[in-house]
């Protein structure tokens, strides 16, 4: 399973990652960051294929997709 880390400090709430995810792993959460933007959250990380589309599309480099510890 992949682990999707969203850096809330850098996120500006454009939600491009949500639109790019073909597996609908990411969704808008109800968490607001310090600047008041709604940050995305990985609701179904078990569906993640690790295509890295969200990581590459993020204009602020706020997303990192990593292999979770049990897989390593």
């Amino acid at each position, binding site marked *: 399973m992949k682990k999707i880390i969203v850096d809330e400090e850098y996120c500006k709430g*454009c939600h491009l990652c949500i639109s790019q995810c073909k597996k609908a792993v990411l969704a808008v959460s109800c968490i607001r960051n310090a600047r008041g933007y709604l940050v995305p959250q990985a609701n179904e990380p078990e569906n993640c294929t690790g295509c890295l589309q969200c990581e590459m599309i993020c204009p602020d480099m706020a997303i990192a997709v990593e292999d979770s510890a049990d897989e390593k």
Partner: protein
Amino acid sequence: MGIGGNHFIHAARRNIDLTVIMLDNHIYGMTGGQVAPTTPMHATTQTSPHGNPEPPINACDVAISCGASYVSRWTTAHPKQMRKAIKKAINHKGFSFLHILSQCPTQAGRYIYDTTKPEELLNQLKRLSVTKQKAQKLSKEELAGRTVVGNLHESEDRPELCESIYALMQARKG
């Protein structure tokens, strides 16, 4: 292309080992949405409220005609291909130019494309781009309003500036 145009032309002419990555969002965004050299014709902006009377510049054609040895165009909707192209451009010996079309939801989206949703603008970029291989089969009418993406030009014919300077130095030394 508007402000650094002259430097760009001469860097391409000399074929100096530089990599230029041009991010093109069709507008001067940070200063408030003024008309830019790449703004589409008839587009409404802050400084062209009745439509832009000027046709946009084709930066890739300018680079090729001035002698750039690697020219490629991609959009932000093609991150994988773009990453490959950037790698290739950096490794290429000679002037490499990358034209990256990107979205500007705040200004270009508001004035030109009538939507400020970043995902819609991204999908539009993807929809309106056509690869070089596909574009060769299409007619001029079908290509109107669409941008050709891909590796547009690559050549090893022209000497790189630093190499020709060193060759000259060696020749003068005897």
